[in-house]
């Protein structure tokens, strides 16, 4: 596949992620921050997000598995995850966290467990999507092409 085709695929794929709500405008902000002085900025920040989120999801699983659930602790973890996902534009994960926090406030353990499942699912989905996106970018760069800048006009 030649570079132009790959770039077209990347643009279409990225657009679909926005259309389907996986990503929001904040992701574009990240991309716009990337420059020659820091060409891997987006991958770096998203990798931090992956590490951070997986730890938080583990902590949440453990916290909800306790005989006496500490809802303040659970809420604190969800708050962190909501913040990180919001900062990188992982919209569905963020929205899942918003719902989760409401149930923490109600101290509704069953609903919290359902939310945790939901958030985990959304997290793994967006992780796969972003990894696929980065692979497409790598292929373009390896073939000597440049990454097209996304615009919000669509």
């Amino acid at each position: 596949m030649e570079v132009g085709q790959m770039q077209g695929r990347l643009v279409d794929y990225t657009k679909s992620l926005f259309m389907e709500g996986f990503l929001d405008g904040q992701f574009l902000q990240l991309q716009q921050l990337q420059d020659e002085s820091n060409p891997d900025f987006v991958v770096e920040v998203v990798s931090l997000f992956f590490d951070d989120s997986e730890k938080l999801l583990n902590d949440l699983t453990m916290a909800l598995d306790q005989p006496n659930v500490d809802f303040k602790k659970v809420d604190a973890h969800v708050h962190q995850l909501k913040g990180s996902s919001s900062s990188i534009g992982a919209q569905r994960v963020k929205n899942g966290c918003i719902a989760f926090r409401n149930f923490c406030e109600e101290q509704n353990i069953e609903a919290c467990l359902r939310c945790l499942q939901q958030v985990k699912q959304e997290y793994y989905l967006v992780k796969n999507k972003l990894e696929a996106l980065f692979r497409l970018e790598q292929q373009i760069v390896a073939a000597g092409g440049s990454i097209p800048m996304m615009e919000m006009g669509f």
Partner: protein
Amino acid sequence: MDGGCGGGCGGCSKDDIAVEFGDEPHVLAVDDNLIDRKLVEKLLKNSSCKVTTAENGLRALEYLGLGSDQRNTLEISKVNLIITDYCMPGMTGYELLKKIKESSVLKEVPVVILSSENSPTRISQCLEEGAQMFMLKPLKQSDVKQLKCHLMR
């Protein structure tokens, strides 16, 4: 959206802004979230600011020379702006703001509070305590342009 900052501030250019006092403004950014620290750091560096980050209020105070066991204020790092998250474990951004405003040495440094919650009570509480601005997270490039307008005054 091009150039111009909101609210009564003329002449901000889109490019690196030449600051009056010649050097790059030095910003202290305080946030317990690693991703947010990285983000604010990059946003500020892209606007030609020198950035120091701190992961909590105590570390921030130490850096500013206000640590509980610091008597010697001669070693204060000169900071032109402090940006702090509101929700932090231990010392909140609001508590940090109060400590800064209580200090004779640091009370003139503008403090900006960041929060993910758009709470009117929280906003007025911070502004009353002397915060320069209150901004919603996540931070964007247009927000940093607005901040630089404040630094230029």
